[in-house]
């Protein structure tokens, strides 16, 4: 077996340098690689192009890299709820490339699947399609989209084993599996790191071959963005 364990988030982020394109798993604050983000902040690398569905919030998630001025460009589908982001975007400090969420997911998946380009109907007739090839399939116009190319992918899983196999929980799965498959170097932080043979081989979401470094996160805050609940009736 090929083991992928590294000691900690510092070791796991070794090799990230200024100007790189890097992916971050997560949807909103759900399933984000908190520990790797903290280490990247500590490493103070600059001019990053970040591929991530969202850009975190002020003071958490990718917001931590934004406020530290480490991000040159965000490639995302939705970037609300973040004042620092808005400030840097309006001042022109931060470039932003907004793309449809499904296209974002599929461009990650394509990278991990060795598919350099594919056609999708999403965005046809909108500014997203500008400059892109259009072709009709089954009577419907589609646009050509390209696979992403990322030097690093940082993902967060629930359980992992020393072979790099990953299992996610609930909707914390989201973009993590495709990004794990897409990274040239994929770094996974997990809540539980187990010996090989501990996970059901039928239940693995990301086979270890896609994961280059795995470590147990020190601490997971798992902040909730919108706490919505039903009130219990008191009798």
């Amino acid at each position: 077996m090929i083991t992928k364990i590294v000691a900690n988030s510092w070791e796991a982020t070794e090799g990230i340098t200024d100007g790189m394109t890097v992916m971050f798993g997560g949807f909103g604050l759900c399933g984000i690689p908190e520990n790797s983000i903290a280490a990247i902040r500590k490493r103070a690398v600059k001019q990053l192009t970040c591929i991530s569905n969202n850009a975190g919030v002020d003071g958490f998630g990718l917001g931590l890299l934004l406020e530290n001025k480490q991000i040159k460009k965000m490639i995302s589908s939705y970037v609300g709820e973040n004042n620092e982001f808005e400030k840097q975007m309006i001042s022109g400090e931060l470039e932003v490339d907004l793309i449809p969420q499904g296209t974002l997911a599929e461009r990650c998946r394509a990278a991990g699947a060795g598919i350099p380009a594919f056609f999708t109907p999403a965005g046809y007739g909108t500014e997203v399609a500008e400059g892109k090839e259009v072709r009709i399939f089954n009577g419907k116009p589609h646009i050509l989209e390209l696979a992403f190319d990322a030097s690093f992918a940082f993902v967060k899983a629930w359980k992992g084993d020393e072979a790099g196999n990953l299992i996610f929980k609930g909707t914390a799965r989201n973009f993590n599996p495709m990004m794990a498959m897409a990274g040239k170097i994929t770094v996974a932080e997990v809540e539980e790191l187990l010996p090989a043979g501990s996970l059901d081989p039928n239940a693995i979401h990301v086979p270890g071959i896609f994961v280059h470094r795995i470590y147990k996160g020190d601490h997971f805050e798992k902040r909730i963005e919108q706490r919505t609940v039903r009130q219990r009736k008191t009798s």
Partner: protein
Amino acid sequence: MLDKNGIAQRIAQELKDRYYVNLGIGIPTLVANFIPEGINVEFQSENGILGMGPFPWEGEEDADLINAGKQTITALAGASFFDSATSFGMIRSQHIHMTVLGAMEVSQNGDIANWKIPGKMVKGMGGAMDLVASAENIIVAMMHTNKSGESKLLPECSLPLTGLGCVKKVVTELAVMEIKDGAFHLIERAPGVSVDTIKAATAGKLIIDGDIPEMKL
């Protein structure tokens, strides 16, 4: 005239048994509260769940279980979790029978604009472009006019588009309109709302064919 819950309730009448449904943020989310009796539907949220249930009981929130609006939710028996590529795969391959979303503008040929106001902070389209490019049955839930009193039902959208010719129905506080043949076809009035009120609030081509019934909620 309907309130937000009224709009949601009217849209819920469009649900059919065995529908898989994607509900957008805002009024669309409320539709889940008005599922007609005897109808089984399943809700998908594009961040990776089928079989989405109601909000959790207080104290039972799970940070790993949210909907596309980032709200804490629950999963019903028979639910499944999946990644975002699979999620939009089921959307693009038209396994979702009905999509309900909000809009800033809708045009008489079914174009929709709901993601960008030039000159203002742009938050992004999220999954809306994939949804409107794929779903067969797109219903817009919105107010008939904007805060300045201008009609949101237009001959042509003035804002950047989210999708072309995709909206099938619009439900507002005033009316239900079907979009076909390049026009809004008025099919129901909200309780107490006159045809003239709807006419006045609709800038796009409005077809009024015979007596327009008042909707039943």
